[in-house]
């Protein structure tokens, strides 16, 4: 175990970090990139946490959500308006027909350029996702329902990742949180957990928020919080977690506090 003095230890860490970032960023350059390489996630606060300052075109982003009602959809849809800025369409693979176009319109997503694909079977859904990712005219492909909910589908994820590299669009997958221990080919894995009101570690309640008062029956759902873990991120170091505050009125997402390295399971990646 090498011993470091206080000063040189920080330097060495910084050097190692930059070296690691170079190594990770250099992996798998795509051939068919057009326009800007990086798309904003639509949430400036999240962009700041990501090493590239957003999502890279031609890659997969995996959102893991823990059960119903987490509101992860509200976060993952934020990427669509910036992604469509340079043309192309958004293709949503929605086998269960649960995508809500009304909310999408309210989030400034151009419905004319949003295609909904409703495959009847799981293999059709995977096929459609792969075809869509392979097409350069599709700026962002969203696998809306839990398309790949079995762990044995790592091979399929690899196919999707290669398709995204070929097409140069962004692939957004929504998968159950139970798969966070499984390897994945996604460049960025994000885990979303609902934050119980008044939980330990939750942001301090401002006086205007009355969520901690059990007796209050007046409408108070003005804003709510989520915990976001960046489980894995190419070019990033370790996992990070943050509390996000979602304004129900405007749909805006703010970073409340950034936590230290998350306590979630260690990063698992197939790459």
């Amino acid at each position, binding site marked *: 175990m090498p011993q470091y003095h206080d000063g040189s230890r920080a330097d060495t860490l910084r050097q190692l970090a930059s070296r690691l970032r170079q190594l990770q960023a250099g992996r798998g350059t795509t051939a068919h990139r*057009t326009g800007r390489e990086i798309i904003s996630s639509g949430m400036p606060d999240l962009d700041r946490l990501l090493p590239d300052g957003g999502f890279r075109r031609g890659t997969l982003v995996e959102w893991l959500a823990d*059960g*119903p*009602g*987490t*509101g*992860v*959809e*509200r976060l993952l849809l934020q990427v669509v308006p910036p992604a469509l800025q340079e*043309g*192309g*369409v958004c293709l949503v693979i929605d086998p*269960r027909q*649960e995508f*809500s*176009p*009304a*909310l*999408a*319109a*309210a*989030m400034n997503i151009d*419905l*004319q*350029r*949003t*295609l*909904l*694909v*409703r*495959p*009847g079977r799981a293999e*059709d859904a995977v*096929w*459609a996702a792969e*075809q*869509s990712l392979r*097409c*350069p*005219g*599709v700026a962002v492909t969203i696998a809306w329902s839990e398309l790949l909910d079995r762990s044995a589908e790592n091979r399929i994820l690899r196919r999707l990742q290669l398709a995204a590299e070929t097409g140069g669009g962004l692939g957004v997958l929504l998968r159950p949180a139970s798969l966070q221990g499984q390897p994945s080919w996604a460049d960025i894995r994000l885990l979303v*957990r*609902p*934050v*119980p*009101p008044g*939980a330990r570690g939750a942001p301090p309640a401002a006086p205007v928020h009355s*969520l901690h008062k*059990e007796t*209050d*029956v007046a*409408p*108070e*759902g003005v804003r*709510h*919080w989520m915990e976001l873990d960046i489980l894995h991120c190419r070019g990033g170091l370790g996992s990070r977690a943050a509390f996000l505050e979602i304004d*129900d*009125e*405007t*749909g805006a997402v703010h970073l409340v506090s950034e936590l230290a390295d998350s306590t979630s399971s260690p990063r698992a990646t197939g790459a």
Partner: protein
Amino acid sequence: MSLAEADAMLEYADREHPPVWGARPAETVRGETRRGERFPCDPEADRQVLRELAWSGFEFTPVVAIEETDTPECLLLDIAGCPHLFGGEAAMCRRVQQAFQNQGLHCRIAVADTIGAAWALAHYGRFEIVCSSGPLARALAPLPVESLRLPPDVLKKLARLDLQRVGQLLKLPRAVLPSRFGKQLLVRLDQALGQRPEPVTPLVCPEPVEVERVFAEPIRKRDWIETVLEELIVRLTEQLQQRQLVAMQFTFRFVAPRQPSILRLETDADESKHRRPPAMIDLQLVAPTDSASYLQELFALQWERFHLPGEIDQIVLRAGQLSSRKTRQRALFDRNDDGNDAKLVALLDRLRGRLGRQSVVRARLTSEWLPEEQVRYEEFLHGLPTVTAGAFPPEWTARADGSLPPRLYRRPFPLDVVTCDDRPVRLRWGRETFFVHDCEGPQRIETGWWVRRLIRRDYYRVATRDGRRLWVFRQRPRDAWFLHGEG
């Protein structure tokens, strides 16, 4: 139409249909930007579009022509001998009108004995559909002189003499007209009244393009059929290319052999059982094509999951929805990268080919109240749907982000709910139990009894104790609870 006229019409349209929910500044800004765009006039493009529209006229009559002027704006259909097929002239006109409406076009139609009279009645008649009967002179008399397709200088002269109606012209002695107003006036007048012929050049009606292969003996082997199909596709596309045509619909018909009479059972009296109905593969494309390789790729997607019911002895391949090769598909999506649009169309064709036409849709918002009815889904075939984000009911637009769940279930799930003071405190959904920390509502949504059966729901946005957000409603007056969305 002059620019000033167009501007005036736009202004009028804005006044008639102001932005509906214009309370928010964002909405009014959007409303202003929608106020029409200006493009340079392109007569050749107009003529081309009119020529393409003329193809749909062949559905009604074999003789279709385009008005012969420098700036044509009319289609001429010679319907002699055809109306009885459609239930009379009026019914036929309505069918024609419907056919154009399906393409998003509004048209005026007139039926008359001469081209001139039909033109006049279509432009200046009192109704959108005019079927004139009786003497032409009487039908034309009340129309303005502009209805005679006269050059502007003649119209000016007529105006100077206060000759406004065709009836006034008819009263004048014929001999005077050419010397005072030029020959053209008399020619047009005679053409309208049927006293002088008016030649038209009809377009050539496209015959259906079809290729077939009849086998000496019934076959069943898929490999063989596949080889024959590839050959048929090549033959069909060659025919299309020779005739400068492209098609949007391709139908493959697999005809089953007729059962020999010696094998028929006596009891089997039903004639239709002796020949199975032909199995079909129908390819409906997003954009017209005449490319063999493209068709073969799309066909392969369908063929791999196509079940051939038995032996066949004939394959017919037919191309439908033909158009001239110069037809360009309107851009499906504006602002798309040039080369990518074609790839996107190919993707859509593949998706529709394998998943079915109804599986690839675009959403369009409507101003219904029930959340599940706020969206209509449309295929791409009928041009571009217009999307108006401002078409929400006002209460929903006001706080659309907060009040609409990102995930709306197709069918609401029944819930077991414990309430206190009419508000939910505990929800049970299957095996899961959620304790309500806070709930927002009720927001009552009620349908009009005059529309259909009354639906009355009280919606609540529920925040559970573990931080989840659910969207539940209470069905009134039955008092049953349902989970309708989440997030």
